[in-house]
């Protein structure tokens, strides 16, 4: 059944874009104030554990998606029900990220454009790329990853050259002890963005060289985690903790300060470009995971027929999900604490345990 193949490098860039996609712009771990970057750094460790867990399940069933092995482990109906919940979860996640785009673009560059247009063209473009298949998606990610890296490197240099960075803003470290940091880790930085990696359990079966998945996956988690840490630290040292926590889009606010030679200025549009690309691939992965889950669960042979209806559902969900952007962000924090752990940790841990005991029993 699995015909399309993605290379390890493509897997690496896809996971990379996925992890820092929305995170760079929306920011996470800000409950820990100045020490947000430490919270993210600890979150990376959590991310590694999560990836190890998904990888363990993957080694047990290298050709099956999460829906496939949940039915094997729990039986057709119980496993199928959990699969159904995952479909809803992925559609909801895709819709959330689509709303992120609608919110950021609407608030920054296209003030007068209705959100349905902004989100609509985005989901149409994503539907097209999903229609072309996972391989095209991964190869396209490969090219835009390079673009994002170049933009990121340039942006980083501009921060240094414009003299905005004030490392003292980060001091003193751990002003109020470890407690708020660990709390931010628990409520925020593990799940967002690393818990979302559960969608990759639907993409792992497509990877060509199965033996090196662990190495490359870990590298991707660590690299992207360090990148978020770095970008959060830069934002903090540019904006200071007060503005940072009050700002809706910290990176955009920070970039706006850049001014070099009276020519390179107002680069927030460039930051928005990075956001668009990152979120594009993030939604694509969730969307694709939802499609694969549906196809696996309901034994749909023509996956492509599911694409357009799902696009409509995601678009509409993203529009009715919240009344305004603040409500949307608050909801996000709530969901991160309650629903995410169930899907990102709960069910996979359950599967790991069942699989582990099953193997003991058969021995």
């Amino acid at each position, binding site marked *: 059944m699995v*015909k*399309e*193949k*993605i*290379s390890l*490098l*493509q897997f690496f860039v896809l996971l990379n874009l996925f992890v820092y996609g929305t995170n760079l712009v929306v920011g996470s771990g800000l409950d820990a104030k100045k020490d947000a970057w430490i919270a993210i750094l600890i979150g990376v460790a959590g991310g590694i554990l999560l990836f190890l867990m998904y990888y363990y399940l993957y080694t047990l069933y290298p050709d099956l998606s999460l829906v496939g092995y949940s039915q094997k482990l729990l039986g057709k109906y119980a496993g199928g029900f959990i699969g159904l919940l995952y479909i809803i979860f992925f559609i909801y996640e895709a819709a959330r990220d689509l709303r992120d785009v609608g919110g950021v*673009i609407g608030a920054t*560059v*296209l003030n007068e*454009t209705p959100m349905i*247009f*902004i989100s609509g*063209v*985005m989901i149409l*473009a994503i539907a*097209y*790329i999903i229609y*072309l*298949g996972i*391989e*095209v*998606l991964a*190869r*396209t990610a*490969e*090219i*835009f990853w390079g673009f994002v890296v170049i933009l990121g490197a340039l942006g980083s240099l501009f921060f240094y050259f414009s003299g905005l960075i004030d490392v003292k803003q980060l001091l003193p470290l751990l002003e109020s002890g470890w407690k708020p940091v660990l709390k931010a880790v628990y409520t925020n930085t593990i799940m967002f963005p690393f818990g979302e990696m559960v969608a990759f359990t639907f993409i792992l079966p497509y990877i*060509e060289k199965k033996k090196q998945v662990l190495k490359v996956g870990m590298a991707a988690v660590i690299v992207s985690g360090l990148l978020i840490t770095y970008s959060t630290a830069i934002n903090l040292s540019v904006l200071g903790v007060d503005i940072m926590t009050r700002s809706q889009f910290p990176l955009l606010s920070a970039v706006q300060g850049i001014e070099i030679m*009276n*020519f390179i*200025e*107002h*680069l927030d*549009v460039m930051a*928005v*470009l990075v956001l*668009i*690309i990152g979120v*594009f691939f993030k939604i694509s992965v969730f969307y694709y995971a939802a499609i694969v889950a549906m196809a696996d669960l309901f034994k749909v042979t023509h996956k492509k027929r599911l694409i357009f209806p799902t696009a409509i559902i995601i678009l509409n969900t993203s529009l009715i999900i919240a009344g305004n952007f603040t409500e949307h962000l608050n909801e996000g924090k709530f969901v991160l604490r309650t629903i995410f752990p169930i899907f990102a940790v709960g069910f996979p841990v359950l599967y790991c345990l069942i699989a582990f005991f099953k193997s003991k029993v058969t021995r």
Partner: protein
Amino acid sequence: MSFHWNPFQKKNHDNNTDKKQVESPLHKDISENIAKLKLEFGDSTEIVIRTFHIGRHKDLPAVAIYMEGLADQNFVNKFIMESLMLHSSDIEEHASSKALFQSIKMNALTLSNVKILKVWDELVLSILSGSTIIMIDGWNEALVGETQGWEERAITEPTSQTVVRGPKDAFTESIKINVTLIRKRIKSANLRMETVQIGEVSRTQIAYMYIQGIAKEDLVQEVKSRLDKIHTDSILESGNIEEFIQDQMLTPFPQLINTERPDAAVGNLLEGRVVILINGTPFVLIAPATFFQFFQSPEDYYQRADIATFMRLLRFLVFFISLLAPSIYIALTTFHQQMLPFPLLINIAAQREGIPFPAFIEALIMEVTFEILREAGIRMPRAVGQAVSIVGAIVIGEAAVQAGIISPAMVIVVGITAISSFAIPSFNIAISARILRFIFMASAAMAGFYGMTLTAIVVVAHMNSLRSFGVPYLKPLSPFSLSEQKDIFLRLPQWFSQKKLSTIGNANEIKKPTNQASQDGD
């Protein structure tokens, strides 16, 4: 996902098989044959039918048939008529038809390339290709002598792909000359050529060349099978073939390269590609093609590496300018004014004061005007060519601005776009940029940089879904391959890739043509 759109395939295929069933043999009586021939050609005046006696053999009349203009008349006179009529005195008198036929073939005909034909259709085709037919009364076979000779255009400098430094010869309309131009450059027995005839009516000669051991076996087979699948009435230019054998129809991107430069063709042969030559056109096709090859000029390899790299990077820049310049202008002036430095913003705003159109319409008017001018410049008779440039310069440059319809900044943008599109070495990739430019303009007008980014992702995704003879179109950027980066954006010095030259002749791993890794998934 790739689909071959070929509505004529089935119908013509049936015709073809019908025709093969009615193959008729030659008649023993030459007067019958001559009558049939005249009937078939409808008494065309350029067909020459000359009846004569061979040497002193008066019993059995012989006949020579050729087409005036296609066959070289001097050649026929000297090596067929003269040798058969005057220098064949040693042929036995009163020999049987068969013996006579044999002795003509073995002793009398002073031509190097002689074949024997038995089938009527082949005989007609031979006459139409310029050969001379010799038949003897009482024998149902015919001798065919290669006597082709018609006026050819001389080898000239290439007109569409010029270089400053490099060979100055170009292909001509004759496939024979073209093959020679390639053979002259590669003195290797591994350079293989196979020919096919395509076109029910035109019966055009098509040849494909490759180097055994460098070109992948699969690729050659694929080219062969795709060429065999073509069933059409006529092939007049390489473009006809291109449409039949390209992987996907619905795309603005070319999937085969055409060139009129023998050195470019040879370079591609050495890199393991297949060159397809079509009789009657100086443009040969090269398969497979990837996107980045369209930015390579043969001159890249004749100039020093640093200069070549600079020129190549310039070409990529130029491609993006030609693709994006108007849409960036539209996006900046419509949505992202804050990105412009303040003095420039004031300047542009002042210029746009009083312009009745939004930036998108303004750009559209100018771009369409320019496209019309360009097209007119190509199609119009040479003699009136000057008029276009004068009218164009006045309309685009002066009048539109003075009339307050177009802002001067827009004229600059359109101008730089136009110049850029001429700096791309391959004409057909420049056309892709021209088509996509309008799509980018529309998306910039609707949603600024946001729309442009989405369009860019969609276009790249589309390119990623393309394949040329199985090779991913954006290879080696995606799927990424570090070892092949030395000749994409950069042109590293020759000694960097010396290895490939030593591997010619054995099936090698270093320079295979379709090494699209195994991640290609088809």
